[in-house]
């Protein structure tokens, strides 16, 4: 039996996230004021959950085939006939815009002899769906359009050969799919998320940069590096002077939704530099420096956080005519990172608008794909730019090799990549055979495993 802790857990000494955002002045967004970290077990987590092929296969069958998962953004399939192929393990899903306000998804496999109807990792546009092998063709709505040499198939009826559908759900510009006909609706699955995102309209943003990196680790191992900042002072010491880490807030709201809140322009309690507000602002890490490129001066009595918030607010207004002045400082600049089980991270703040997604690389338990998307607001003229083309980089390629990538963020991510490889190898080399998690900072890693277990035991 796992022991469940009864006492309230300790928190990092020093300024908490709530203290820091209270000091910003002005209102504190009610959603950011929430704190929720329910009691959990403290048992070790076996490495077999990362290294065993049998466990990976169970995840594929009992979890990936049953959950809502992000497939693409609506702008990827903007016009009727546009399609986007999303792959997970051996599954391949063809997402198609079938009408102005309708997106459908199909299993990407021909009903004749199984050929993928569209190649993996591809996107494009076609007014019907034709298999490249013998030319079996479907209308966008999945009904049969043509079976060449129909005389040779008198044993089949068109109405029995509609493309099998995969469920589609949409929220805030995101297109989700679910292969399980019995699963609850997307809105139910997303729990508190739609309510929390009342003031962050992600449909006003588009994908400006999309990097897909092959990572040398199990998908959970890789994404867990993004669910705690306990490692930051050691693995990314350069960050500690400008952003929070061990004082981050970790919240768990329901089975599928957790988040962390990390203050920007606010040194970690572990920082040994005593930077001035001006130095903080100058060194500030943002997702893309080209958004806020000019140097600003922090006036006497002001803070780097407030100056940064003003600057982002002005830039977004200038670039996109988007008024975000009603957002608080923390809502505007902080790293607000929501995790949607199993593998999606959405960062809604205009100062750090990102989407992360992790998933197995094919059926390889030891490798995964990490999609990182940097968002920009849709320009003021309302013409939505085409989403950035995905740039794929290999395990040994630096993030810095991608044009448009922020150098500082690229370095941090390269540091993470090596650690992932060493952790994967160390899990196999381990005598102990299990990981011991911290109670608070790594609570969301445990939550990921707890929710995963609920699917595996169904």
């Amino acid at each position, binding site marked *: 039996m796992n022991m469940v802790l009864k006492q309230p857990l300790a928190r990092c000494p020093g300024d908490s996230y709530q203290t820091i955002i209270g000091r910003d002045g002005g209102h504190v967004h009610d959603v950011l004021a929430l704190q929720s970290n329910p009691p959990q077990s403290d048992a070790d987590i076996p490495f077999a959950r990362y290294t065993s092929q049998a466990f990976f296969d169970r995840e594929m069958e009992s979890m990936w085939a049953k959950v809502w998962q992000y497939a693409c953004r609506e702008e990827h399939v903007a016009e009727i006939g546009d399609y986007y192929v999303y792959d997970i393990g051996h599954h391949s899903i063809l997402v198609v815009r079938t009408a102005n306000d309708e997106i459908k998804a199909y299993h990407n496999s021909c009903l004749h002899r199984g050929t993928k109807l*569209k190649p993996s990792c591809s996107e494009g*546009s076609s007014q019907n769906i034709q298999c490249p092998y013998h030319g079996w063709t479907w209308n966008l709505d999945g009904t049969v359009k043509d079976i060449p040499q129909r005389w040779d198939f008198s044993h089949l009826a068109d109405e029995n050969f509609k493309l099998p559908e995969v469920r589609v759900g949409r929220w805030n510009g995101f297109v989700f799919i679910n292969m399980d006909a019995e699963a609850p609706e997307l809105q139910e699955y997303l729990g508190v998320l739609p309510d929390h995102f009342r003031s962050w309209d992600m449909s006003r943003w588009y994908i400006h940069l999309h990097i897909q990196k092959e990572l040398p680790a199990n998908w959970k191992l890789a994404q867990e590096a993004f669910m705690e900042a306990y490692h930051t002072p050691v693995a990314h010491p350069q960050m500690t002077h400008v952003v929070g880490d061990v004082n981050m807030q970790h919240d768990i709201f329901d089975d599928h939704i957790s988040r962390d809140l990390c203050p920007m322009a606010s040194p970690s309690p572990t920082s040994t530099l005593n930077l001035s507000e001006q130095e903080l602002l100058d060194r500030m890490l943002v997702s893309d420096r080209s958004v806020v490129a000019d140097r600003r001066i922090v006036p006497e009595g002001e803070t780097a956080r407030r100056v940064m918030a003003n600057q982002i607010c002005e830039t977004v207004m200038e670039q996109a005519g988007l008024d975000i002045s009603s957002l608080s400082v923390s809502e505007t600049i902080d790293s607000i990172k929501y995790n949607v089980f199993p593998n999606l991270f959405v960062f809604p703040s205009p100062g750090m608008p990102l989407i992360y997604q992790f998933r197995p690389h094919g059926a390889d338990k030891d490798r995964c794909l990490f999609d990182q998307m940097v968002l920009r607001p849709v320009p003021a003229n309302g013409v939505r730019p085409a989403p950035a*083309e995905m740039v794929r980089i290999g395990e040994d390629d630096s993030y810095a090799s991608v044009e448009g990538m922020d150098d500082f963020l690229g370095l941090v991510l390269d540091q993470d990549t090596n650690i992932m490889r060493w952790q994967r190898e160390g899990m196999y080399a381990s005598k102990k055979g299990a990981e011991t998690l911290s109670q608070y900072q790594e609570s969301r890693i445990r939550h990921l495993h707890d929710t995963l277990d609920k699917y595996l035991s169904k």
Partner: protein
Amino acid sequence: MATLRMIEASSLPPSQSISLLAGDWPVLVCRTEKGLRAVIDRCSHADTPLAGGRIRRGRIACPLHGAMFDLDTGTCIGAAYRPLQTFPVAEVDDWIEVTIPDDPPPAYLRAVSTAR
């Protein structure tokens, strides 16, 4: 080489293409972010017209099976199909002009595949 005046420039909006017969050559004129481009209107994958394919970032994706080509060079991207033949194209006096070879097009261009 012969330069032929084809259509009024204003009749081709951004990110659109139009299929034209220049002499006997089936040519697809595309308006990309970088300007006009002209390629043979026949995909080197399944030998079908490219007209109607989505044009983004200087590339066209074949509407039938998704083969993708760089419109500057005709090179196929992400697959090993033959490059598309390209043609000089220009906007002159608000008209689109295409330059074609003196030779007649090869016979295979006269038959359109029955796929589609």
